[in-house]
């Protein structure tokens, strides 16, 4: 436990253990403000490897882990606790379904007063009966066993959150809603500390998409092909819980930031109040990237892709696009930079696909590299085939070096490539294509690779746009001011940040 840091960053499933966009962003945020001290709360589960993939910056003084599947045992209940257990579990059920901030505050208070934990709320007879009642309300006629395990995880996770000793910090900053936001809300309600919530991707939206294709959740298929059937399914319970966490987080937050306008619209739909919303884009060290001289030595046309080899990056589409591109630009070389250890099966499948398509010599997997800069200056175009993104740092960095981009139409990629309303820089810095369309990506890449004048023009547009809007200094100043405002008196972010 640290005594009085400036900011407590709350990160789910990432920093400092997993490499990814949000984790890198958190690391960059702390390094950009060396005068501030940080404490990191890392949220994960017990089976997740906790080997640090980041070296903590010197101003990050400590890391607290919250394991969602491990909660305090609490005191052993007596027969007289039955009603209290029932009442607390009803509050907990509401926290999982209603999104009511004051209900969550009551729950924190009741758990604290009664000293309840797993022993009372999950392992007791009263806890079992309360679970049965919740089952009747939430999943009538559904599979009880599946409900039991879902209920158990969700209850444990909420207990794990509200059983965590909070570090002393001037401001709590949750880097998502969901469990991060719930921890932040706990800090807000229990310690009365200001809370800033930053959403890169919209948590409920991402979970909704994840749950729609989740193979680990039982689905009865009772609705058949009827979308309006609304048969009670287990995934609706999970989705409701995530939506509830978001609503609690929005209610508790003093300021809610995101990186682009489309996300803000989704936040409003999920119940975020207008007066708390503001847009803060990602920022990069423009000067550092812009200073890189492009390698002018003769070489084959080179396409670069930077990103983890995971399904969400849809590397398979990129590989298929390169296979098609070879028909138009036969000597093209594609370089993939990114770790393969997060989903080794998928990575192996990608290599297998390269082999199937007979593109082995043209596609090079480099894995994790110490310095990505040396590859940025020898590439002709950056490709991004992701299915989902927020505001990819790799794209901003490549753009700052003067690299045109071909990207799928996800997150704010179109905004970065084609500009936005009131953008001082006009023109396109690349081509936006439909996701999962290798042919479209191949054609876009060919268009840029085969036209030197177009490539130079796009490179210039990208360089200027990134310098004017996505500068790290500007973004750092915005966050420091946000911390100062809320750490001082809890004043609202409002329009000053927009």
């Amino acid at each position: 436990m640290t005594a009085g840091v400036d900011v407590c960053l709350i990160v789910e499933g990432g920093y400092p253990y997993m490499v990814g966009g949000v984790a890198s962003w958190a690391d960059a945020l702390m390094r950009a403000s060396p005068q501030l001290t940080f404490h990191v709360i890392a949220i994960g589960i017990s089976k997740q490897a906790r080997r640090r993939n980041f070296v903590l910056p010197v101003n990050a003084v400590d890391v607290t882990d919250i394991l969602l599947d491990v909660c305090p045992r609490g005191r052993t209940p007596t027969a007289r606790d039955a009603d209290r257990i029932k009442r607390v579990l009803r509050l907990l059920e509401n926290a999982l379904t209603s999104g009511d901030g004051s209900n969550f505050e009551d729950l924190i208070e009741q758990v604290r007063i009664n000293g309840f934990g797993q022993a009372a709320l999950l392992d007791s007879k009263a806890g079992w009966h309360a679970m049965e009642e919740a089952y009747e309300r939430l999943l009538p006629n559904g599979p009880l066993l599946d409900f039991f395990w879902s209920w158990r995880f969700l209850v444990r996770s909420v207990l794990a959150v509200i059983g965590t000793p909070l570090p002393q910090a001037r401001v709590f900053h949750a880097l998502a809603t969901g469990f991060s936001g719930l921890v932040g809300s706990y800090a807000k309600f229990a310690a009365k500390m200001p809370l800033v919530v930053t959403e890169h991707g919209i948590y409920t939206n991402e979970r909704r998409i994840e749950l729609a294709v989740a193979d680990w959740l039982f689905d009865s298929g009772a609705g058949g092909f009827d979308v309006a059937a609304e048969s009670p399914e287990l995934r609706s319970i999970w989705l409701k819980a995530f939506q509830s966490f978001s609503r609690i987080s929005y209610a508790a937050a003093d300021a809610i930031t995101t990186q682009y306008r489309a996300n803000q619209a989704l936040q409003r739909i999920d119940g975020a109040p207008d007066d708390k919303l503001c847009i803060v884009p990602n920022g990069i060290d423009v000067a550092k990237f812009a200073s890189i001289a492009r390698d002018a030595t003769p070489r084959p046309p080179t396409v670069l892709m930077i990103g983890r080899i995971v399904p969400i990056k849809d590397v398979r589409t990129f590989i298929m696009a390169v296979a098609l591109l070879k028909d138009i630009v036969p000597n093209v070389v594609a370089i993939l930079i990114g770790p393969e250890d997060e989903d080794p099966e998928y990575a192996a499948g990608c290599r297998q696909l390269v082999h199937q398509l007979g593109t082995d010599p043209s596609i090079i997997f480099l894995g994790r590299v110490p310095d990505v800069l040396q590859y940025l200056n020898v590439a002709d175009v950056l490709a991004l085939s992701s299915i989902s993104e927020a505001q990819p740092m790799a794209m901003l960095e490549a753009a700052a070096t003067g690299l045109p981009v071909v990207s799928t139409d996800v997150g704010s990629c179109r905004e970065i490539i084609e500009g936005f309303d009131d953008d001082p820089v006009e023109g396109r810095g690349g081509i936006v294509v439909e996701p999962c369309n290798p042919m479209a990506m191949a054609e876009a890449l060919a268009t840029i690779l085969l036209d030197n004048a177009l490539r130079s023009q796009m490179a210039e547009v990208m360089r200027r746009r990134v310098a004017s809007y996505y500068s790290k200094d500007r973004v750092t100043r915005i966050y420091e001011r946000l911390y100062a405002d809320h750490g001082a008196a809890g004043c609202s972010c409002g329009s000053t940040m927009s």
Partner: protein
Amino acid sequence: MKSPAAVFTAVRSLAGGADIVWLMRRVDRFFGLTNRMLRFVVALLAWQIGVLFALLGGVIDLGGYAGIHILGCVILATWLVWRLNFPAIDHRYSVALQIVTWTAVAGPFGAFVAAALSFPSTTIRSMILRDGGIDSLTTDCSPIERVERLHVCLLDRRIRLDGASRIRPLIDVIVEGTQSEKLEALAVVYRKYEARLSAVLKRAMQDSDTSVRVLAATITAKLHATYGRTIGDCEAAAAAKPGLAQSWRNLAEARLGYAGSGLLEASRARAQMEFAAADLTRAVELDPFDRASAGRLESARQQLAMWRT
């Protein structure tokens, strides 16, 4: 004569047996009900209307009307309640009791409304589009024959299930639904994917809502990955045992599945088909007596020839 249990067991062995049994029960119930119940309702209505006209025509006074009405209803209700106490309760008696209760309350109007409400809806009638083949469903053939005929009619789409048309086609949901409906429709597509649903996925990729596009892309990527993984596994198996015809047959089937998945554009589907034809050729070379592979090869070649022309 087979016992009802044996009939239902036989019916269940047919494709979609449970649904057909349910449907047949509804058919039986409907026609069983109409024969006697219809006579009962007609008689009740005739009695009620007759008494009402007698009152309006001055044949009886109001007191007489009330007496006949109440006494008649009480006698009928008592008899029906008595019948309901029999060990084998008949559904028709409770329906008749409801009709009598309504008649007691609202006279002929009550009888009319109750009869309309108590009868099964016209479900069965609307289910059966009358043509030569369907009429025979209600004739005197055995239950199992009726089920078989019904099954055939379902398969060749001469009958439709009532209410099925109320299910919005998934593509319509994607075009004009709300965001949550669209996401739900895509979840259905993922769980029940078949080639015909690829149009829904492709339309969803063009949607104005980012979340819908992202989910459609996620599903597409997952489906591609599944097909790709299956092909990869079969390739590895074929490479490990190149002398085994079965390995090449499996690989060809995996490729044909991918080609026919609706996920690939024409050129890539054709390429998969060509690979599959090569794999099947190899399987046939290794096992010349494998007629199934030869048949598959022939149809793959025909398909490829059709594409070329």
